[in-house]
């Protein structure tokens, strides 16, 4: 491990370290899986600038994520760490890595599915969401709003499992 990390630049090393910072509301996902970590920059004076982007405008996890990033880097010996929030371009579920989507499903949260038709249309067709437990596609939407901003509430009609769906945002 030490041999490998020695060949990395400081910025690459920081990206690797931040793989250990997870979303406090979905601990199975790292901020890299989520596509929330946008940029890492080390200034000449050694100050580290980290840029993150919120999933939803009011996402209450952002402050915790920023604090966790600082703690992780300070613990690693970086003296000055600033975390900036960037809104544009706006986050989309397209930035979830495919590894992240697999982790979500294994964790019991259905990953986002491409909608049929225009997602911004006033009334789009419903998407088919697969039950993360029994993999049945016979599921129903209970509510477009779930336990966190990024999730909707579904129920499987076959195994009856109620589950969260990480809803598509584009």
């Amino acid at each position, binding site marked *: 491990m030490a041999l490998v990390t020695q060949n990395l630049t400081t910025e690459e090393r920081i990206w690797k370290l931040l793989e250990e910072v997870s979303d406090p509301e979905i601990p199975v996902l790292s901020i890299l899986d989520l596509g929330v970590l946008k940029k890492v920059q080390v200034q000449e004076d050694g100050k580290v600038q980290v840029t993150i982007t*919120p999933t939803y*405008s009011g996402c209450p996890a952002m402050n915790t994520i*920023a604090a966790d990033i600082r703690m992780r880097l300070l613990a690693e010996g970086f003296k000055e760490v600033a975390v900036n929030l*960037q*809104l*544009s371009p706006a986050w989309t579920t397209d930035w979830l890595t495919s590894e992240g989507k697999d982790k979500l499903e294994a964790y019991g949260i259905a990953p986002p599915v491409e909608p049929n038709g225009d997602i911004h249309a006033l009334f789009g067709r419903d998407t088919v969401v697969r039950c993360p437990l029994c993999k049945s596609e016979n599921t129903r939407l209970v*509510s477009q*709003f779930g336990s966190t901003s990024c999730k909707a*509430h579904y129920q499987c009609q076959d195994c009856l499992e109620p589950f969260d769906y990480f809803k598509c*945002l584009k």
Partner: protein
Amino acid sequence: MDLHHKPTVDLQGYSPELRALLFDYTLQLADTSLILGHRLSEWCGHGPILEQDLAMANIALDLIGESRSYYQYAAELEGQGRTEDDLAYLRDAVEYKNPLLVEQTNGDFGDTVMRQFLFDGFHYFLLKELQNSPDKGLAGIAAKSFKEASYHVKWSAEWIIRLGDGTEESRRRIQKALDNLWIFSGELYTMTDTEKALAQAGFIPDYSGLLSQWEAHVAKIFAEATLEVPQNVFMQKGGKTGRHSEHLGYLLAELQYLQRAYPGLEW
């Protein structure tokens, strides 16, 4: 944790007049989303069923998050050292610029759904256009919030249909909500001097175009919900220029309590 959104907007090319107009307008958008978000948050723990309690709390969170982005950008536009907290917590009712609709009290679930429905259509079509503003600050926030508003607009429209085309009691109550709240819908589209100047300069859309899209949307949903739009009513206005109903004072007393009692406290 001092986590601030840093808009990457170069304001150097803006004249003082343009900055003042954009400040005024950004503040109006901020106030509108904050006040409606606060009203919705009052439902938290009181929703008719758990799923709808969660839905209203989620929509409140989106709106309050949106308002925060606007307040931070407004503070930057003003450039006088005031912060997002000063703007949200230390202005009195007469300085608030939200339209009257969003400060109306929650009433029953039907009243809340109707207030939301009338607003959501306006919000959705406005954000859709505002994403293309040459002002990168407003365009960036609009692009982010438009995605969220796409979910809100579906939620409120579905409830209008469900309640209107539901039982005799649900129809009676949602029709009453429409009769009471319709008079506040006109103000959304009555342009202030600031809005006119910014539309003229091409920074925001002209509201007549938004109005026709909104009218088609609400007419379609009301037809499906078997609801009747009140005819020949006098449209109330004033909120956008600081003339509010008495409800706003009570709302702000609660919203601003902590900052007034403990000045300087940070978000």
